[in-house]
């Protein structure tokens, strides 16, 4: 069950469980979460429940809302988020809204939720599709690159930030360098002969790259470095 902890001047003054589809927050008496502070507008914000999500939306309040220090108008609440409205703080607690939880198991949604989904079914094929990947996870990947010794990149330094990059001559000899959590790897892509690392053909299996390795592929000669 998700809840909001109401905090004023650093002290907890209340607890509010999110049990309704729509919760109103404001200075108006009768608001689901009534916050009596001149910095809070009468109808300051709402929280809507859609599936597993609780979506916070500022209703055009005079002084605005911030979440974790950033000014927002609309935000999908994450476990531990702190919302600031006037002198009040609302802390959102929902163990289910933790990105590390096993929330990837595909499930069919319950009939009650289907109405929202049906209402929202797109008629237009051009509508944008949700981007769901979590790129932030790449933070733990090592960083390295190549120094060109000979060929197209001679005298240049290339940082390998993307997950992979190919080198060599298309149609003749190409190898791919992959950036992975344990380090960088090189693998043969195309051509009768494979690229060479320190003078040795790399074969068809992926090979780990060490700091200082010299790669020869197509017309290129490159030195690998780790930062």
């Amino acid at each position: 069950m998700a809840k909001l902890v109401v905090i004023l001047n650093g002290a907890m003054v209340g607890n509010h469980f999110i049990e309704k589809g729509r919760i109103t927050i404001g200075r108006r008496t009768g608001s689901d979460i009534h916050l009596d502070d001149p910095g809070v507008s009468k109808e300051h914000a709402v929280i809507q429940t859609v599936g597993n999500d609780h979506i916070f939306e500022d209703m055009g309040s005079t002084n605005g809302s911030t979440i974790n220090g950033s000014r927002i108008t609309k935000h999908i609440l994450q476990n531990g988020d702190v919302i600031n409205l006037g002198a009040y703080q609302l802390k959102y607690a929902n163990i289910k809204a933790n990105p590390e939880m096993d929330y990837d198991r595909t499930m069919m949604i319950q009939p009650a939720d289907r109405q929202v989904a049906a209402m929202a079914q797109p008629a237009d094929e051009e509508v944008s599709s949700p981007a769901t990947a979590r790129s932030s996870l790449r933070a733990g990947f090592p960083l390295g690159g190549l120094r060109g010794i000979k060929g197209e990149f001679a005298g240049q330094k290339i940082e390998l930030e993307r997950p992979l990059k190919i080198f060599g001559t298309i149609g003749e000899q190409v190898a791919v360098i992959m950036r992975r959590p344990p380090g960088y790897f090189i693998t043969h892509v195309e051509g009768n002969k494979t690229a060479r690392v320190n003078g040795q053909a790399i074969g068809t299996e992926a090979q780990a790259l060490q700091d200082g390795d010299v790669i020869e592929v197509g017309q290129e000669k490159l030195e690998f470095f780790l930062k």
Partner: protein
Amino acid sequence: MTKQIRVEFASATDTGVVRKFNEDSIATDNETGLMVLADGMGGYMAGDVASALAISVVKEELGNALGNLKQAESDSDKKYLPQTLAMKRAAEKANQMILRVARKNSQCKDMGTTLTLALFQEDRISIAHVGDSRLYRLRYDRLEQLTLDHSLLQGQVAAGLIDSGDAKLSHNRNLVTRALGKEETVAVDVREEDVLPGDIYLLCSDGLNDMVEDVDIELALCELKANLPLAAKLLVQMANDNGGHDNVSVVLARVQVQPAKRGLLDRLFGWFRR
């Protein structure tokens, strides 16, 4: 000159880093030009039963139907090819079969699956899908999503409830609004598209597109199109390197065009060019 499509397939599937079982099922058929993927769910470890069942029913139904196609079978307004309609019927048949098996076996209760299939024929591709397993196309090095997920999240984005960019913060990623094995009837989305030589098609379970950004999928396909099996393998590896929270399956198809029959003039010019 008639043009005959030739399609090269490659695929990879993996349990991922977190799960114990792989509930995805995939298949390709060079003879008919078919690629299928199903992402199973629910039941007492029976998600894989549902996905495998969906694949086998679709292959069999479609195999039979494609042998006996008549143009007259086309729908009244001739909107879709008879092959496309046969795919829709095959998906509906799979739905009924999954329901039947689930009723007979308590261990299979509540099992279900997504299903996405694509069929190449001459210069067209027919697409049918239920759920959130996606079909993408790489054309002129640009990645484009051809299917729209039947998911709560897609619905929220379409309704403007949440921003496409914010969707990665949602906890509704896993909630599909349509699946096989859930109700007596299922709405199957179908679509037809032109096919161009050089096109690459990617069929994947959400274990790929939830873990790997579209820009990185695009990069992998652009860089590795010369080696399709390697591209499939590395896409799965990228999903696992990013956490591998789910089963991940990838089916790739590359379209090549070869002249079916060389006409007299063609042969003549061919001879002169030598």
